[in-house]
């Protein structure tokens, strides 16, 4: 594997609409050939970033370097990037073929080259037989693929995808996720994907940036973001997570701390540096928690609570457990071959455990 080569560098991008600062000194580096995702809730500025890269919106200040060249002031039609829009935005009066050929015609590609390139792009998205159809004769998923073909046929340095799958239904979306990822690997084009769907972001991306209020919250691989969220916002935005209050009572050194949680003292691992007396949030993923029947528990060093809700989810049994402090934990347990029919009754007292080290300890923040 070669050293990753930066392809796109965003420097200090800012944008304000009226009083609303949508983007605040935003820095980002995207590497050549990666599948990069901008993830965040609506209004976090992710789409603005994408539109600035495309040239459909101007930054108030800042630089956009594409392969070393500042394109921030270059008009959209001159930039070597292409976009797949959320609404597909196909040209309704043109056939699928003409839609895909549009970009090539605009850049004056020789006529004899257009046809093979268009057909190649259509074959790639498995729409070779649909070249002469009009967009309104295609299903949503097919239109989506035309939009992708129309963009990639121009061989852009960067392909921008704006919530491109969100208009599709669940099944189709899952299928397109796999297809997009495969396409990206095949083409070797850098994909910049914008979404508010964390599952989509985790499953497709090489790297993800989580944005909130125009700022970067965390940048990393899907695994880093899921397993080591940098702050409470990221932890809660990506997947479900349980949050318990705690206090540092002693430092064992080497990122190990004695933490008081739910009236008990625990030895926990934390990436952050804390002082004795610091308040912390202890975060636990529902699937990292193990629920045990009280009679099976040998140690007293365990959380004990009452089942207040149990939901059969097919693959998992999801329960809500209320602790004596009033805090509630969500757990999600897979059925396994040892005990394929386990279940709890409401109000049953159970013990909750987790694998030491799988907890995330962050500085205390008031809930978002």
């Amino acid at each position, binding site marked *: 594997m070669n050293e990753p080569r930066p392809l796109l560098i965003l420097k200090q991008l800012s944008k304000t609409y009226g009083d609303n600062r949508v983007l605040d000194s935003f820095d980002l580096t995207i590497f050549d050939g990666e599948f990069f995702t901008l993830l965040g809730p609506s209004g976090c500025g992710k789409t603005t970033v994408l539109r600035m890269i*495309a*040239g*459909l919106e101007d930054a108030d200040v800042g630089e956009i370097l594409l392969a070393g060249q500042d394109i921030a002031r270059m*008009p*959209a*039609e*001159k930039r070597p*990037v*292409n*976009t797949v*829009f*959320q*609404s597909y*935005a*196909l*040209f*309704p*009066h043109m056939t699928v073929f003409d839609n895909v050929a*549009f*970009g090539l015609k*605009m*850049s004056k590609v020789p006529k004899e080259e257009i046809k093979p390139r268009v057909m190649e792009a259509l074959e790639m998205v498995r729409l070779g037989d649909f070249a002469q159809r009009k967009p309104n004769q295609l299903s949503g998923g097919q239109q989506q693929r035309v939009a992708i073909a*129309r*963009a990639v046929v*121009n061989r852009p340095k960067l392909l921008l995808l704006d919530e491109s799958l969100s208009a599709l239904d669940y099944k189709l979306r899952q299928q397109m996720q796999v297809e997009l990822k495969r396409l990206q690997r095949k083409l070797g084009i850098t994909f910049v994907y914008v979404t508010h769907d964390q599952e989509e972001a985790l499953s497709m991306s090489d790297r993800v940036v989580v944005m909130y209020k125009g700022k970067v919250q965390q940048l990393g691989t899907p695994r880093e973001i899921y397993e080591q969220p940098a702050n409470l916002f990221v932890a809660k935005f990506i997947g479900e997570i349980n949050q318990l209050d705690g206090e540092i009572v002693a430092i064992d050194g080497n990122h190990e701390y004695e933490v008081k949680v739910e009236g008990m003292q625990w030895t926990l691992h934390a990436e952050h540096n804390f002082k004795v007396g610091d308040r912390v949030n202890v975060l636990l993923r529902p699937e990292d928690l193990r629920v045990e029947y009280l009679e099976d528990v040998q140690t007293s060093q365990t959380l004990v609570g009452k089942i207040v809700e149990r939901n059969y989810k097919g693959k998992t049994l999801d329960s809500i457990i209320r602790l004596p402090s009033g805090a509630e934990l969500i757990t999600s347990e897979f059925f396994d071959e040892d005990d394929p029919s386990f279940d709890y009754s409401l109000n049953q007292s159970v013990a909750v455990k987790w694998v030491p080290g799988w907890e995330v300890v962050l500085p205390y923040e008031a809930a978002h």
Partner: protein
Amino acid sequence: MIRTFRFGFLALILFFIYLPIGVLVVNSFNDSRYGTSWQGFTLKWYERLLANESLMTAATHSLTIAVVAATVATIIGTLGAVALYRYQFRGKAALSSMVFISMLTPDIVMAISLLIIFIAIGIELGFISLLLAHITFCLPFVIIAVYSRLRGFDVKMLEAARDLGASESRIFWKIILPLAVPAVASGWLLSFTLSLDDVIVSAFVTGPGYEILPLKVYSMVRVGVSPEVNAISTLLLVVSLVLVIISQLLLREER
């Protein structure tokens, strides 16, 4: 019971609306000077019509005005509609509602205001004043026809075109215009008909040197309804009807 009543009511309305027109059309083929009774089928009123030189001149004038006014109104109106669709600007909402209002302005108000302005800036009443007046009252119809069609298309499409390398003028010629064509044609036809049978505005802004058909017919009627008037009215009716139908079909197509 209720069904028969509903049907009968509707039939009655249509009867009221179409009876006079029907009488007029029938009489234009009636071989009788006064049209009080049916004397047999004839085309002689149509023949006389064609032989009537002053009437034919007026018809030529009317057609000239209608073609030029419709064409100019269509060009300006289409560009206006494209601007409303394509660009975001201050006062856009006010502008588009003003277009509607001008369409609903009573003819008489428009007629008087145009007359005043022509006199004020010293435009001689005749061809030019008629043409300007007709362009003015046709314009909102074109804008609304074209704008409402364009509004049905995703604006993101234009961003997609830019993103694929199309310049502003390419976007207009390759994307916006082809999509607008049915509405543009329909706007032209509508303008043509509006211009061809306008009486009120024309009566105010015309001059003695340039007589147009509706006004000519009007002056002929003053001395009694002649069968030629029936014939020319029937022709106007047919032309208007055909054009309106075509324009409606153009808009309905591919929806």
